[in-house]
């Protein structure tokens, strides 16, 4: 019987492509032969917009890149601008930035666990993850007034100081997270069906992951110890001790374990940051009209999805000449083709979920 390959289209609208991503699958009766991701359905031209806005006006645009971790995008952009303009952020401002960034990592990972479990069928974990994430969104709503695209950092530091009410809310949220993680782990970690669906699926060796430019939890699951918070500490991350969770055989199950462990480490970091919160100013003096002399800088941080970097080229005016955003999901999605060969359609869904891609970030 002539072998006939079906061209299946996991189109721009599909329950498990986390947004508007199109996967062209060449399928031989459920076994995937080739995967070709097509992106660009959410390209809004943010880099072109950055060239027409001042440094202050660009920060809200960075919220809408990775809309799960808005504060992390702000942090990456602002650290690049401050490095370019030579602005020194006071210690208290740096600590508050670490607290907000790690809270945002918690929210992003909790949402990811929910989506990945929902892709593999466990719908309840999606609801548990989102219920826990609501607690963190309330903190941001109390601190800055918005929930998702919060624009919570400014050039030179943070807009408001952390008062006792917010700190008590943060500590309350941190207390409830480990209990909720235990529920999720009880439901998933040693569940035979979950193990069948995730162990040995989407395996990529460490050297190939490095060559493909993979970063973040997906790379750490391959056993590569690369966490920019540890390698090139920024915004006083060197004051906190936390360990970098590593996986062994780099499959969907290890990425799940690495992210679970990262949630616990983030809770540790926030507790230390609150305990050692120094006094003083929380924002440096920044001129109203910030003109940065010609120069270029590339600075990257450890976002929940991977290494998020900003390249800014200044031309002396108050608007940047060029802003290029090095986006982790864009590069991670490239390795999907390599990871999915020979697996089933159900595995493509699980692998895509384990990469934790966000289309707002990929299409910029």
């Amino acid at each position: 019987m002539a072998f006939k390959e079906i061209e299946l289209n996991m189109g721009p609208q599909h329950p498990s492509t986390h947004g508007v991503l199109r996967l062209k699958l060449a399928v031989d009766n459920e076994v995937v032969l080739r995967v070709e991701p097509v992106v660009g359905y959410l390209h809004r031209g943010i880099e072109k917009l950055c060239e027409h806005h001042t440094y202050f006006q660009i920060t809200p645009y960075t919220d809408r890149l990775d809309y799960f971790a808005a504060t992390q995008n702000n942090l990456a952009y602002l650290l690049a601008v401050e490095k370019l303009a030579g602005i020194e952020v006071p210690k208290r401002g740096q600590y508050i930035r670490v607290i907000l960034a790690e809270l945002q990592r918690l929210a992003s990972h909790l949402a990811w666990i929910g989506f990945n479990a929902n892709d593999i069928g466990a719908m309840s974990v999606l609801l548990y993850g989102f219920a826990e994430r609501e607690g963190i969104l309330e903190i941001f709503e109390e601190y800055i007034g918005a929930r998702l695209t919060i624009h919570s950092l400014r050039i030179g530091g943070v807009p408001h100081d952390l008062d006792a009410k917010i700190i008590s809310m943060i500590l309350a949220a941190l207390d409830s997270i480990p209990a909720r993680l235990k529920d999720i782990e009880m439901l998933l970690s040693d569940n035979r069906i979950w193990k069948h669906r995730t162990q040995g699926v989407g395996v990529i060796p460490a050297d190939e992951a490095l060559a493909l430019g993979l970063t973040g939890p997906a790379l750490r699951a391959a056993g590569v110890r690369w966490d920019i918070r540890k390698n090139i500490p920024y915004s006083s991350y060197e004051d906190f001790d936390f360990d970098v969770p590593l996986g062994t055989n780099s499959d969907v199950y290890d990425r799940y374990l690495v992210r679970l462990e990262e949630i616990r480490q983030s809770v540790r970091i926030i507790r230390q940051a609150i305990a050692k919160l120094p006094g003083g100013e929380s924002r440096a003096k920044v001129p109203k009209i910030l003109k940065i002399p010609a120069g270029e800088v590339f600075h990257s941080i450890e976002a929940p999805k991977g290494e998020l970097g900003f390249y800014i080229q200044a031309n002396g005016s108050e608007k940047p000449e060029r802003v290029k955003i090095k986006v982790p999901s864009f590069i991670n999605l490239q390795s999907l083709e390599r990871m999915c060969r020979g697996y089933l359609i159900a595995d493509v869904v699980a692998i895509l979920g384990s990469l934790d891609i966000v289309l707002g970030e990929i299409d910029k």
Partner: protein
Amino acid sequence: MTEKNAKPGFFFGSLDKLITWAQKNSLWPFGSGLACCAIEMIATAASHYDISRFGMELFRASPRQADLFIIAGTVTNKMAPVVRRLWEQMPDPKWVVAMGNCAVSGGPFPTYAVLQGVDKILPVDVYIAGCPPTPQGLLEGLMLLQKKIAKEHPTRMIYARDARTTE
């Protein structure tokens, strides 16, 4: 009795009430999100704000079974024909809610790649402002839609048969 403003009699009036009551209370949204607003839409469907109280929690993945299309996010020029085709695939009594500034009017992205407002390609019933609108904002928009559905007259085609041609 001119057909233009034909009033539904008792029978058709109460039949309308029954149909619109049913349509209002079992609006199955189409499980398609485009950008940041989609995350707030899911947060609205999650346990904290719980859209299932209104009977809307069955997010149907296939357009054939959905009757409410929430445009949650930025509609780019590349995505516009896809959104239009998805809307056409939905069975007839269908409603469209434009959620968020990007869907309402292009929002913060006046660029070459973004369609400035989804009402250029779809008939929109309710516009919800916000970038992204908070879950309370989305719930309020959906309740407005429910009120709008309650005022509709699906059996108009029967009691105002000629009106259909003059409409």
